[in-house]
């Protein structure tokens, strides 16, 4: 049984730095997330053979597509890839069905039309095959681009920001369709996007990249709650990220203690970090508890810290409160707007906040040797 996974290992300095290594199994969706210019598109172009990376190895379904050491570099046409381009890149002078048939060169002529119609049906475009791309909406064009990519019967499906050119409503619909479609496909799917929310909805694993380098590849849950370092945490939208030092462990109590300025916080046991290690740590906003003035709040004995409200931004039902501490570092939290009003929260008011110990996550500090991944 050949290994139907795709294995990718790429390294180059120019024109866009790349330092990536990951695999994707059949039926799995790996979503590569990174800001613009982080090398996402170059990664896809390297996989399909349009770009030749300086060094590395790409193998798919038991075939080596690229190996800089063995000087193997299969041309695009010999790599079985289905690629959905960012702006779809449909052939404008061909109808939808002709676009699909164009990618069926490997089939007998007699089979092409039937299979193309079956693909149209699969992407919910039945009856629209005779339309030209300019007669189709953005969402419909995207579906045809997916059908064309699948028409090649590829070993791997590559999607380059396929939802970036459609409105919010269409995007939700297309994401749902992609998830449904993927259940019927037995091939690795690599999807790149800068949109983390989109990634969380469709990914089996998310690969966070920055300047072409893999920062972390993990399940969406772990990426969101257990980022390996501050860079991943920033990219996943965390704002309460700080630096501290591990002070001690208490294995019996299952606790680790960290020092943050004058405060010592208790967190869940994270023994991979030796006492004295400088770490970055984060606390998701939902693990910050604002103490009520009139009566005790849940968990208020855990890691209490007092500061002043430096800013309040009401955003409809929720208000973002930023609390500044003596050392001028701030934590951000969301509070229901009515709660903020009832508690008389206002800029300059003194408040106490508790950091729930299980919510504090320690991360390797940038530039230091990494701790074992959890």
């Amino acid at each position, binding site marked *: 049984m050949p290994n139907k996974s795709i294995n990718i290992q790429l390294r180059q300095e120019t024109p866009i730095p790349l330092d990536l290594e990951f695999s994707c199994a059949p039926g799995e969706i790996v979503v590569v997330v990174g800001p613009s210019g982080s090398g996402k598109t170059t990664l896809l172009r390297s996989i*399909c053979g349009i770009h030749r990376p300086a060094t590395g190895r790409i193998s798919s379904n038991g075939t080596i597509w690229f190996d800089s050491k063995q000087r193997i570099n299969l041309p695009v046409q010999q790599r079985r890839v289905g*690629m959905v381009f960012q702006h779809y890149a*449909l052939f404008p002078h061909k109808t939808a069905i002709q676009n699909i048939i164009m*990618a069926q060169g490997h089939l007998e002529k007699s089979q092409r039309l039937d299979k193309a119609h079956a693909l149209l049906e699969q992407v919910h475009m039945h009856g629209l095959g005779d339309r030209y791309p300019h007669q189709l909406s953005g969402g419909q064009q995207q579906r045809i681009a997916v059908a064309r990519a699948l028409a*090649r019967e590829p070993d791997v499906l590559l999607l380059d920001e396929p939802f970036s050119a459609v409105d919010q409503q269409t995007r939700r619909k297309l994401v749902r369709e992609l998830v449904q479609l993927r259940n019927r496909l037995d091939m690795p799917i690599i999807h790149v996007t800068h949109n983390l929310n989109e990634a969380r909805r469709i990914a089996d694993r998310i690969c966070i990249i920055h300047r072409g380098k893999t920062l972390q590849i993990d399940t969406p849950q772990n990426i969101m709650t257990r980022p390996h370092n501050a860079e991943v945490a920033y990219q996943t939208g965390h704002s309460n990220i700080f630096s501290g030092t591990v002070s001690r462990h208490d294995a019996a109590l299952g606790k680790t203690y960290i020092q943050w300025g004058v405060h010592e916080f208790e967190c869940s046991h994270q023994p991979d970090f030796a006492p004295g290690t400088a770490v970055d740590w984060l606390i998701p906003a939902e693990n910050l508890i604002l103490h009520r003035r009139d009566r005790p709040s849940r968990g208020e004995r855990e890691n209490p810290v007092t500061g002043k409200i430096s800013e309040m931004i009401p955003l409809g039902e929720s208000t973002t409160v930023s609390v500044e501490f003596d050392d001028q570092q701030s934590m951000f939290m969301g509070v229901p707007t009515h709660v903020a009003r009832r508690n008389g929260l206002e800029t300059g008011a003194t408040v106490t906040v508790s950091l729930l110990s299980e919510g504090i996550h320690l991360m390797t500090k940038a530039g230091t040797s990494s701790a074992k991944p959890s």
Partner: protein
Amino acid sequence: MDWQALNLSLTLGLWTAVLLIPAAILLARLLAWRLFPGRSLVQALLALPLLLPPTVLGFYLLTAFGNQSIVGKLYAALAGDTLVFSFHGILLASIIFNIPFAVQPIQRAFESVPVSVREAAWCSGLSNWQTFWRIELPLAWPGVLTALVLTFAHTLGEFGVVLMVGGNIPGATRTIAIAIYDRVQAFDNASASIMSAVLLAIAFLCISLIYFLNDRLARRHAQ
């Protein structure tokens, strides 16, 4: 009305277009998508006939095609005839003179084909040749059409270069434009005006054809 001259002009225009357009397609595609050292210089050289007075270009071509030149000697050895003052001579001059009219519209057309569309063709399994034939060329077709009609029409109206290289030999090098000049010199304004009107009509027809076909193509393949 000098029917022989009109016939010669139409033949010259047709052959110029037929011979020049395929070469122009390859050259234009190269200039549109490849960055190579000296690209600007090549483009400037190809555009030169647009700016040079036809007599200057004609003079240089006359010198280059002359019996003492390499081209002239080569032609004489192969065809047993002189290149200057022959139909082949004015055909070659006409091809050179029309290069910018053929290359530029096609180059613009290739430049307007998105790179991603070509890449999508490769990813769909189309070879480079299939991509050219089935994707690039159909998409650049309005430019090719423009080049074809422009080259043809422009050859019909050409005067200076043809006169310099070919002279005024009836049936061999006397084109309709030269015939008009010839008639005016002979105070035969009636013939000159008929032939001018014919040339005007052809030019107008050609330009209208370009606009009509391009509009139609644009409507069909609007992106």
